């Protein structure tokens, strides 16, 4: 038995364990490890009064085997890049993370290093970080990188902090208070700007799908602190006027940051430096093949030109070439300070370093080319599905991803992208709609990267096509989907209403009884 090779549809069924929250499994007194009685000398540790816990810490109490089963069950209720054809999470760049790199990162020589070890005993590690910096400089054209940040939004927060410090250092804190971004740039660009006290102006696209340069001109002023922009944006269209954008902002006295979290389509082809940017960042877990984890730990490396390098977080990793010694460099005059403990996420940096070194310059370029080829192959196949379009720039090829729209299908059948999303899980693949707000109606974003074979891309298209046909032949099945997944429908009211959010078990217990029954 195996999947039907004609239809390419799997008779898939996800595990469904109906597993409770770990706190609900807790049994008082149950233990995973029985710690030996302590019979040594008591050490007097003085914890300041304000920091002392008033009661016992509330941790679940469970035996080892039950803990193991709990987490293995949860893991079976997941779909990840190693299980499904993970092209449906466009903008996230779900590519293959070679397992050899996992082994390198798990090697005790790396894994058992202690962050407080003396620099002289971690020269290899520091050299690895330094050389990754050198590679990234070459890839971006920037002059210096901080590898500390643990993710994309973290990198953006560092960038917004740099913009803040830069503005303050020029005595323009009150007069330069606006940051410009675009609606198809990642929403974190706007979020971090506001967090650092800037006002945000968002540019909408012109008819060709690229950010409207006239709108940029109208938005730029003496108040402009910075432009934070993605390119190609989330819709996969390259903004060929990008250099004009940076020039317009520079003329007004602002600085420019390139959101290159996902460099996959232009790696080795264009660089932030030549496009006129002062700052940029890459996500190691998108472009450089380190895994995403479950929302981390990742790596968001921030690059700066020489003029702005003095604002980068500390410590940087530097090399004393005379003494052939690598060291943590705190001598960064206008540094925004520390953004993370110790070295950053070392295993992630190591995996990215190994990937870059194993591919070399030609390999990186090849990866970008294959990613673009894969995307345009899918682009053609998906547009053959009736009811599906790709708004903006009709007839033009895309770079590494495409934002499609089911609007014609929704108008014809009433089936929405949300319905399609729910049904795709029944065939063992993941499908994401798009970032809010949905400027492209009924959207979905597909990004194949270089990792997937033609056979796999064909399988994904076959599933998408089948589900689109069901919208016309069997809409009820779609509307009640998923049928073969772990969870069926979840009630969006709990996601939409901040007063119902519960981020921790404790918060949940405060608000609800049983299964989301409001507390009386």
């Amino acid at each position, binding site marked *: 038995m195996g999947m039907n090779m004609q239809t390419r549809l799997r008779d898939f069924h996800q595990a469904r364990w109906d597993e409770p929250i770990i706190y609900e499994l807790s049994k008082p007194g149950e233990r995973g490890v029985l710690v030996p009685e302590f019979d040594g000398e008591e050490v007097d540790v003085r914890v300041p009064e304000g920091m002392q816990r008033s009661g016992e810490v509330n941790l679940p109490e469970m035996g080892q085997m039950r803990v193991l089963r709990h987490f293995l069950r949860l893991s079976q209720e997941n779909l990840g890049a190693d299980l499904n054809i993970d092209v449906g999470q466009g903008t996230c760049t779900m590519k293959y993370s070679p397992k050899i790199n996992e082994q390198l990162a798990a090697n005790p020589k790396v894994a058992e290093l202690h962050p407080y070890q003396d620099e002289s005993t971690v020269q290899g590690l520091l050299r690895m970080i330094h050389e990754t910096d050198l590679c990234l400089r070459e890839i971006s054209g920037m002059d210096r990188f901080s590898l500390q940040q643990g993710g994309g939004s973290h990198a953006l927060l560092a960038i917004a902090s740099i913009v803040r410090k830069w503005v303050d250092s020029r005595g323009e804190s009150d007069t330069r208070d606006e940051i410009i971004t675009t609606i198809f740039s990642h929403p974190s660009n706007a979020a971090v700007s*506001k967090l650092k006290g800037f006002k945000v102006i*968002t540019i909408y696209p012109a008819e060709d799908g690229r950010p*409207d340069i006239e709108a940029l001109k*109208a938005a730029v002023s003496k108040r402009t602190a910075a432009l934070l922009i993605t390119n190609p944006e989330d819709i996969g269209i390259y903004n060929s006027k990008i250099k004009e954008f940076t020039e317009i902002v520079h003329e007004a006295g602002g600085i420019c940051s390139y959101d290159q979290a996902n460099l996959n389509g232009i790696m080795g082809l264009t660089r932030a430096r030549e496009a006129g940017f002062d700052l940029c960042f890459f996500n190691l877990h998108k472009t450089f093949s380190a895994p995403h984890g479950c929302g981390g730990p990742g790596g968001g490396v921030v690059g700066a030109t020489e003029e702005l390098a003095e604002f980068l977080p500390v410590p940087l990793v530097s090399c004393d070439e005379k003494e052939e010694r690598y060291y943590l460099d705190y001598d960064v005059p206008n540094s925004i300070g520390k953004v993370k403990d110790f070295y950053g996420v070392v295993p992630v940096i190591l995996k990215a370093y190994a990937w870059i070194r194993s591919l070399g310059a030609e390999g990186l370029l090849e990866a970008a080319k294959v990613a673009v080829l894969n995307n345009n192959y899918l682009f053609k196949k998906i547009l053959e599905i009736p009811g599906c379009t790709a708004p903006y720039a009709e007839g033009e090829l895309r770079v590494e991803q495409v934002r499609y729209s089911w609007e014609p299908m929704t108008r014809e059948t009433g089936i929405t992208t949300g319905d399609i999303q729910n049904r795709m899980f029944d065939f063992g693949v993941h499908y994401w709609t798009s970032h809010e707000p949905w400027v*492209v109606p009924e959207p979905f974003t597909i990004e194949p990267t270089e990792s997937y074979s033609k056979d796999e891309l064909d399988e994904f298209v076959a599933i998408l096509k089948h589900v689109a046909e069901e919208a016309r032949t069997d809409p009820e099945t779609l509307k009640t989907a998923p049928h073969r997944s772990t969870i069926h429908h979840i009630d969006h009211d709990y996601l*939409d209403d*901040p007063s119902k959010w519960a981020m921790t078990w404790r918060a949940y217990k405060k608000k609800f009884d049983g299964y989301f029954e409001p507390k009386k």
Partner: protein
Amino acid sequence: MKRLGLIINPIAGMGGPVGLKGTDGRATYEEALRRGAVPRAEQRAREVLPALAEHGDDLQILTCTGSMGETVVSRAGLRYRLVLDHPKKELSTGEDTIRAARLMLQEGIDLLLFAGGDGTARDVCEGIGTSVPALGIPAGVKIHSGVFAVNPERAGEIARTFLFGGARGRTQEMEVMDIDEDAFRADRVQARLYGYLAVPWDRGRVQGAKAGSAASENLSQQAVAENIVENMSSERIYILAPGTTVREVARRLGVEKTLLGVDAVKSGKLLARDLNEMDLLDLVQRNPCTIVVSPIGGQGYIFGRGNQQISPRVIQAAGKENILVAATPHKLASLAGRPLLVDTGNAELDRRLQGPWPIVTGYHEKSMYPVTY
């Protein structure tokens, strides 16, 4: 047991196919018949009911005689009771709709469904306002109001979710718009804002999946309002146009705004209510003023629909730079990439208003969004 009101305007939509651009009033109806029009509203209403059939045991429908609801409901085999005994031979009128809606309100209903167009929505609005949730089944010629589902089937689904969907049940105030049919027949569009209905929140209509709840939409409006209020100067008069987003500004100031009129505030105090064009012109010519508008209706008009008091002369006297446009991100997204529109009645002015505009979309948030005519 849930109680659902159903009112069908049986003649709604008849004028459209025979080129009459509306069916309001007896004379037009008779002209439509003469041109060979056939009733369609009952058929549209029928398409709503399958979605509710599975909950038939928990549902009681309150409706009116014959073609105003009874025929459709009894054929679907659903339980019903009549609130309005309309003589079967008589042509039903807007008065019947208003009366039926009020009777249903008195008897107590969880939701009122009505099949018709903008004219019917106006009657329902007059009958119940926002005191009971209501949703339109699109069956009329004119659908400018935001109170209609995109099609009858979707209306059924929204009603089912709203009545039987567990935790759901929130509503959002949506605009009831109507145009002057005589003018429309002469190819002039003069839409007016008549009021609001409390419409069940439909994720699909405004936004999909994870964002876009009534709660988050209201939070967005509050953020926009906070931004505008924070930047208000005590030296200026602020002219508040109709619209739910602008109303939030008044609410933030603690000022009672007229629902459909244009009001003026200064230093957080109400200066004047329900101003007409001459009042506004006088105000704008004598004082530094900022006009605060938000797009009205589904097409995204910022001038010329529902706020005609702000005439070309008023706009010119105030100056483009003193017009503040406010809209939530979802409102802009609902335009699906289409620009915002102006139709001031002065072509030259419309042309000058064209181009990217800064729209206040949140707290310390603006969007540069295209405006055209």
